[in-house]
């Protein structure tokens, strides 16, 4: 299939602050082909969550989408009025978050919340909504689904709550599921199960965009990966390609850090310094001050995303294809 469930073109989100405008999402383009799992990886503050929220239309004042467009299944949704957007949410595209406890209403029973989501988007009776909910609970492997329907969120474990969230997100069979750090707050044994579940959902026809800072999670289930840094995409490639031959110094730095930990090297590899605040981005490549291979050009000219081999793009001057030079 050649269709793209999600396509983002040159998306930019700006937030005015009393010291100038910052862009947590800066000229980001990505796509999620139908029937695939795509991952965005990056450290905190790189803009990956913001990108997801922009797609869902959840950017709040004073932030605003100031450039680019988003296409869901070919339809342009950025310019849609909120009324229309709301109809899409939950029905055609939905999102699950890191902390299920804060996204579930603590005073309403779990099952009821999911059933409400069904009735919001489809015309069905209360009994039918309940039946569909319980069926969905079974599909996401919530044991004793009938009993769990009547549980309050705090009576469920973290893994179960996340499954309830997934049930709520999937019950209207959306085409796109965005998962923002879905397993970060979960134990490692539960994480494995949730990831397997996401794979099954993909097999059943939903495309998934997963956001994570955990390289292991990305390696486990993603087909294609985008790496973000200070609001921009700095590298993108198929999973196996990016793990085998990362090109961007930041990506390499990340991988080295993770590998050195697993191999127990002493001292551990690090990327010197820390992620710059968006207000204080250096001129040119935003990674230049921390980069071990930085040249003078890197400090003045922003490199473009350029293809180094089919399907593999890097934003770096070093590769010789990044700049205006």
């Amino acid at each position, binding site marked *: 299939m050649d269709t793209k469930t999600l396509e983002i073109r040159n998306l930019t989100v700006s937030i005015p602050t009393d010291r100038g405008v910052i862009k947590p999402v800066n000229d980001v383009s990505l796509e999620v082909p139908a029937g695939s799992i795509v991952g965005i990886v990056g450290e905190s503050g790189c803009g990956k969550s913001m990108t997801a929220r922009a797609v869902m239309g959840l950017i709040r004042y004073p932030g605003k989408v100031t450039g680019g467009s988003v296409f869901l299944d070919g339809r342009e949704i950025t310019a849609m009025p909120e009324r229309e957007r709301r109809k899409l949410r939950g029905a055609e595209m939905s999102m699950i978050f890191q902390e299920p406890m804060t996204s579930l209403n603590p005073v309403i029973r779990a099952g009821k919340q999911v059933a409400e989501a069904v009735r919001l988007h489809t015309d069905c009776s209360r009994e039918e909504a309940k039946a569909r909910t319980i069926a969905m609970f079974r599909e996401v492997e919530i*044991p004793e689904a009938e009993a769990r329907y009547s549980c309050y969120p705090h009576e469920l474990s973290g893994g179960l709550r996340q499954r309830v969230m997934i049930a709520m997100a999937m019950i209207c069979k959306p085409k796109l599921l965005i998962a923002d750090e879905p397993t970060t707050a979960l134990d*490692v044994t539960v994480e*494995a199960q949730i990831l397997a579940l996401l794979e099954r959902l993909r097999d059943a026809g939903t495309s998934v965009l997963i956001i994570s800072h955990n390289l292991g999670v990305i*390696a486990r289930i993603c087909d294609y990966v985008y790496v973000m840094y200070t609001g921009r995409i700095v590298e993108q490639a198929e999973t196996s390609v990016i793990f085998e031959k990362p090109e961007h110094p930041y990506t390499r730095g990340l991988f080295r850090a993770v590998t050195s930990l697993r191999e127990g090297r002493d001292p551990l590899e*690090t990327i010197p310094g820390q992620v710059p605040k968006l207000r204080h981005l250096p001129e040119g490549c935003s990674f230049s001050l921390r980069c071990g291979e930085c040249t003078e050009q890197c400090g003045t000219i922003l490199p473009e995303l350029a293809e180094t081999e089919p399907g593999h793009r890097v934003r770096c001057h070093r590769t010789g294809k990044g700049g205006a030079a």
Partner: protein
Amino acid sequence: MSEYLVEARGITKEFSAGRRKTIHAVSGVDLAIREGETMGLVGESGCGKSTLGRLLIRALPPTGGEVLYRGRNITAMKEAEFAPLRKEMQLVFQDPYASLDPRMTVRDLAAEPIETWYPGEKREEVTRRVKELLHAAGMPEEFLYRYPHQFSGGQRQRIGIARAIAANPSFIVLDEPVSALDVSVQNQILNLLKELKTSRKLTYLFISHDLNVVRYLADRVCVMFLGKICETGPTEDVYRHPRHPYTRFLLDAVPAPDPSRRGTAVRMLKGEPPSPADPPSGCRFRTRCPYATDLCAKEEPAPRETGGTVTACHHPLREE
């Protein structure tokens, strides 16, 4: 003189959670840490590792059992007798933001332990010492008069570490100190912790749910499940040849940043995690264990030693 710096004997902690409901956070745990070593403590949420860490430094009173420090029973001591020992044992918190008073400057935060334990010092002297501490923790002294909210997670954790070493303790409990940090910053902090351990002759109890991190720092590791210790032994031994089924599952479940392992079926645990308010009879892990037998339900497995590793299981895994 005991050969162990810190020892827990049959330590138990129970919390009351409403009518007739008790949370068995830690149940009859024995643990011994030698001076100069790093003991790793791993387990998933709710297993009691944070509680155990706090019990060891008497930040919480135990419901039963005792803790010995350098051979002395600190559980039996009255507050006045124990007070001077507090200086010897400190804690680094998981959340580098919540553990720092938002209204205090970095200087005051790091100075507090110094002022508490060396009360006669003049203000300038204390400030000088604080600068030394910040230097040791990898923070420039220019940050002295800033407030916690102005720093990133990694920097805040450095402040927390500076505080912990300020009064020259011997034993530090690190409760998930890098869990909230990005991978590169995490590595920086781990490097720092390793270096401080050597330069200041510290003993660590490193609590984490991240098996990779523990493997890097710990000499010995201890695996906990629902208030009980499953397995304790030298790190490499436990990681390469786990004997307790739970350890095996934990190790298998960690997603490796290696795409070639995709698609390989991961051995999953059965059922749902049991609740610490209502632990299963006999072996607490049995409801999730695929190898459980009737014996496991009837009798709690006693810790048994085989070749340097202590395991509490009726059917320990054999070496593969």
